[in-house]
């Protein structure tokens, strides 16, 4: 029982895969690394652009989309999707 209670738990093992300084692109879900202090960042994989905030130093988070850019990209993608269907 004691042995059982000291070994690493599943959650502790999962935590070993944690990354810092990166966020997931909310469109393609790839990990992206904005330069320190960047206010916006374009995903190198899918071109969607995000507003970035830094709640803690070296700790980025996506605050929201760069509205005009991402709206245009979505409209283009949806338009292609519509054409594809035809």
């Amino acid at each position: 029982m004691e042995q059982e209670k000291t070994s690493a738990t599943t959650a502790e093992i999962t935590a070993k895969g944690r990354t810092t300084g990166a966020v997931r692109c909310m469109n393609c879900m790839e990990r992206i690394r904005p330069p320190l202090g960047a206010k916006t960042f374009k995903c190198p994989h899918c071109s969607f652009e995000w507003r970035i905030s830094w709640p803690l130093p070296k700790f980025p988070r996506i605050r929201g989309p760069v509205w005009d850019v991402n709206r245009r990209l979505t409209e283009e993608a949806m338009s292609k999707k519509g054409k594809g269907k035809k």
Partner: protein
Amino acid sequence: MALDRKIAYINLTTGEIETKPIPISIRKKFLGGRGLDMYLMYNHIKPGIDPLGPDNVAFVSAGVLVGTLASATARTHIAGKSPLTGFVGSANMGGFFAPEMRWAGFDHLVIKGKAEKPVYLWIRNGEIEIRDAENIWGKTVTETQEIIREELDDRDIKILTIGPAGEKLVRFANVMTEIKNAGGRSGMGALLGSKNLKAIAVRGTMDLKIERPAEALEYNKRVITQVISAKVSQTQGRLGTPFIWGATNSWGGIRTRNFQANQFEYCDDIEPESIDEHAIGMAGCFGCQVHCRAKYIIPDGPYKGVYDEGPEYTAQGALTAEPGCKNLVNLLVGNHLLNMYGLDILETGSLIAWAMELYEKGILSDKDTDGLELRFGNDEALIEMIHRIARREGLGDILAEGGLRAAEKIGKGSIKYLIHVKGMSNLHSDERPTPALALGIATGSRGSDHLRSRPAIDLYGLPEPVLRRIYSQPVAYDGPISSHWRDYEGKPWEVRWQELCYEAVDCLGICKYHTIFLGPNFPNFEEWSRLLYYNTGLEMSPLDIWNVADRAYTMERLFNIREGLTRKDDWLVDRYFDEPTTRGVPAACGVTIDREKFAKMIDEYYEHHGWDENGVPHPETLKKLDIDKEPSHML
């Protein structure tokens, strides 16, 4: 020991009070908090009773780890038949009330009957007194607490109370403690109001004996490291729960203008970073290291200078995107008023947004609104409707009855625009792009629910091996798993797993932000097994705890079935299937929930539970869980 706290039966009609110990056999089956409350509910509430009548029973409890050396064990649970839905009523709140109740000698209160005039309960070190509350009837949540503390001459008293909304029997009134800790959803405030029970005050100095204190402390340090090292905790400790907004609104998961869009565009002023500019610090609940509750002072307008706490992510959506309002001060004021009235923020904001859509579609007229221009984006109308609902004035009186009753009264096809499950409004999240989240809200035992089964980590695009590792313990699972939030496959198991994970924390009394809710690396069944052992001496494996949760969840199902629930209640409103989304990233845009695939998800979800195709537990499921003889009236 930490398991010696009692259960008290309080009859407000007769004034009789009886206390009993809780047998260890019952503990092992239901632990405490929500789990044991569900057992009590099924045993003490007669089928078909009026939820606002004297036959309903209110249950107030602490989880079995509350007040021990385990972190974030602050949770109070309140239960009863819901005045809003007629099904399971269940609310859970943080703060400091539950630990104090345990130190005062009690784990569970069973409150029956109805007092002749307003009363409050005063519980101190094993003694319970019913006291006159006429001087606090009509007072706000914070005023009530101040008066009671003054009256009993003790600043350390912890108080659970209802606000004016609960007194007025608004069917979605909250039970509250401190300033903003809310036992929301399902109208437990109205239940207390119907009993003329304004508040419960507790003060306790009876030690909880920790079984293995040195090991409990040492192990808890490890759990604390696990929790506070998570990125989610660090962000939450900085920005509070509104930090979630950045992700969900970015991809298109925010229900906007009732249900007319799935993204609130150009809303920078109400984003968490903007709210944070007015925060004056963060606060935490008992035993928590995350501190996710923002403290703020209203910067402008008629309420300038007023202190409050929050707003939470829920308030952020209910008071901005849903009614289409982008004004930050309005959000802070609305949050403050709802806290003072003791109203469910989510339900109130959702119903006002629904009424706004009805007004814009001509279903509600100026006559119905007494001249109020109830349009999306009208900040003043939003605030005015909060007052009217709490005071039950005009259209507010109709909305105070909850969505389904209001739709019946308004008529004219208004129900088509109501966004609910089982009569309870949905969070401001838009689940059309996310089948897993849609299944969670459709099947929730207390109605549309983002807190009782949501696999939020489904949105993170985690690799399949990681998801499989998380979701394959403490019971093996070798079915499908999918990383993409657009998929239907494998999601019923995620919902089922999260359902039991959240049920378990509610039995233990631990905050959901300390388990796998917003992040994948948080403590769960394995850690709880150890915490339970060191703190209480109860030797229960992770699988044993899973089984407790399963048993308690199945009791909720049995209660609902007894009250008339059928498979058709585990369903979404038509708009989820018929109106495609219009915003967000391409994967979230132009999508609906597929009816056929969704029905199959429900079949699979029922199978995972051991329920038949109608959602009724098989006899062998009840036998396996040892609840085939309920109600057993053991307590």
